[in-house]
């Protein structure tokens, strides 16, 4: 248990360098605030729900003021409805190991599950080992902390994408989960280059390591048992047809989508993804258009709600500790 708590805390410390104003960071402007984004406190917990199993994570998040700082990071978005931020182990969809942060439209909150990241060290270690042993020849290097931190930031921005679509009534014609990924990618590439790479690589490496649907066709078409209370997930994801039923894209679809938006936004900054063969040239050829499409969508549907002066203030803050980006 102690080892678990310590390792989780390490993850969180690394991940939350994104948001922590360390001694090397610029001062966060005092007027970087938004009354429609609140840290949702209950019973005096300051937004950080009580937990025994993840006490180390909670303590670290509180010390780093993650919720408070994320609310400041989002301050430029003039939400017409209040968005609540909090962290928990067992509220709503934070249930059991592997839970990840989520946005709930019915209650308009982002719940940052403490347990997110429990698996991240092993995944990050695996990627770092593969890179070190040249099993991913030519793939861009990324540190353990970059992978963990970038992924955490990407997930938060993905969930914020859902919040934006909901609270700003953004028309979404595509699959919303892809759209939320796209929002995360779009926001990331508009931060400074180091942050953008961390987020893109963290997200992409995570999905790289997550595997793909089974390839052997089933002998029969998937059938749901109406009498079963099971969500069918276990049975479905081992079925080569049903594995595509999720509202999320497959791991590698999400990976390539992220890489494509990044490359389309800035060839120079992400050329190595193509040169390494990670982003296939066939797909890369269309990435400029994909980025332009996302850019147009953002300008048409989100930008009118954005306080540009506050955006400039957000961009002036050194949210990352530079040593975490090496």
């Amino acid at each position, binding site marked *: 248990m102690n080892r678990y708590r310590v390792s989780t805390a390490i993850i969180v410390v690394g991940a939350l360098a994104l948001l922590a104003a360390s001694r090397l960071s610029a001062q966060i402007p005092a007027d970087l605030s938004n009354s429609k984004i609140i840290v949702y406190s209950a019973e005096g917990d300051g937004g950080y729900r009580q937990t025994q199993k993840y006490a180390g994570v909670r303590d670290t998040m509180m010390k780093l003021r993650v919720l408070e700082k994320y609310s400041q990071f989002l301050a430029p978005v003039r939400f017409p409805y209040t968005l609540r931020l909090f962290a928990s182990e067992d509220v709503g969809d934070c249930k059991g190991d592997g839970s990840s942060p989520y946005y709930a439209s019915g209650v308009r909150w982002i719940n940052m599950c403490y347990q997110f990241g429990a698996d991240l060290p092993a995944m990050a270690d695996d990627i770092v080992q593969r890179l070190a042993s040249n099993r991913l020849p030519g793939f861009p290097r990324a540190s353990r902390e970059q992978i963990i931190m970038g992924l955490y930031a990407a997930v938060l921005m993905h969930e914020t994408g859902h919040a934006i679509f909901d609270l700003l009534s953004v028309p979404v*014609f595509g699959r919303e989960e*892809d759209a939320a990924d796209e929002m995360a990618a779009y926001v990331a590439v508009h931060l400074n280059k180091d942050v953008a790479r961390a987020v893109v690589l963290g997200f992409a490496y995570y999905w790289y390591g997550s595997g793909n649907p089974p390839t*052997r066709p089933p002998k029969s078409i998937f059938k749901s048992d109406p009498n079963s209370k099971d969500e069918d997930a276990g049975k479905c994801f081992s079925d080569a047809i049903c594995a595509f039923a999720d509202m999320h894209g497959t791991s590698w679809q999400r990976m390539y989508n992220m890489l494509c938006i990044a490359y389309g936004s800035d060839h120079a900054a992400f050329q190595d993804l193509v040169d390494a063969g990670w982003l296939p040239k066939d797909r890369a050829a269309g990435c400029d258009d994909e980025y332009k499409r996302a850019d147009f969508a953002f300008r048409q549907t989100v930008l009118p709600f954005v306080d540009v002066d506050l955006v400039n203030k957000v961009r002036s803050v050194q949210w990352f500790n530079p040593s975490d980006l090496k």
Partner: protein
Amino acid sequence: MLSCVGSALFAATANAQSAVIPDNPQLVTSYVRPQSPFSPFVPIYNGLMKRHVLEDLKQFFGPLRLPRTLVVQVSECGGATTKTYKPGGPVTICYELVDQIGKAAAEMAPNDQGQQDQIVNGAFVQAMLVELSHAIFDLLQVPIWGRESDAADRLAAFIMLQFGEDTAKTAIFNSAQLFLHSALTPDRIWTGTDFAKATSPEAQRMYEYMCIAVGGDEPSFGWVYNYMPKFRAGSCAEDYAKIEGAFNLRIMPYMDPNLLVQVRARRWLQ
């Protein structure tokens, strides 16, 4: 297959009070003759022309006000089954695709010509609506979040549901069947860099159409729940509501409401 493609999309049934729906003046249609008189696509070309498929299309899209002319054509595509729409360019349905659909339908229902006809009807409608969706997004400058290919599928599915349960069942059910048939083909298994494609796997598209269908019309498509995992089925109503909301905000303002009623009053796909 040829005759049913002709009777496919837009062979509207006359009714006692059928009004004349004017052609959309901004849709310019063309049946492009195959280059060689011996082309295997000549019968498809002749069949489509004979049944006035594109003429009916101009009426079906009569209510849509476009800012400029759009060419819609059926044509040979040099062996490809799709020809990507490019801004300023035509919408093209390839004879190769029609041929492929027909062959697949024959495999799926080898002893049932009626069923084959239904499959071809549905799949042809689906293909046409998807390609037109790309053009609509372009011409109306619709902001697209998410992949455009999926957006086109979702808009096509939404449109299919607006013309009564018979049209919806023919178009969506048969399209879904064709996607499933393709997904089960051994050489169509997706691996590795296949997932880098900007289009979605057939199985994924099948679930997309089924989800929009049951989300928008549960009485007609409730059977879908038997074949869809619960974790997805629970989101379908919301999925439909999202595409409906997006349509109402960004496309409906370009529709002539009076003409739309007339188009919806006709029975299509009979």
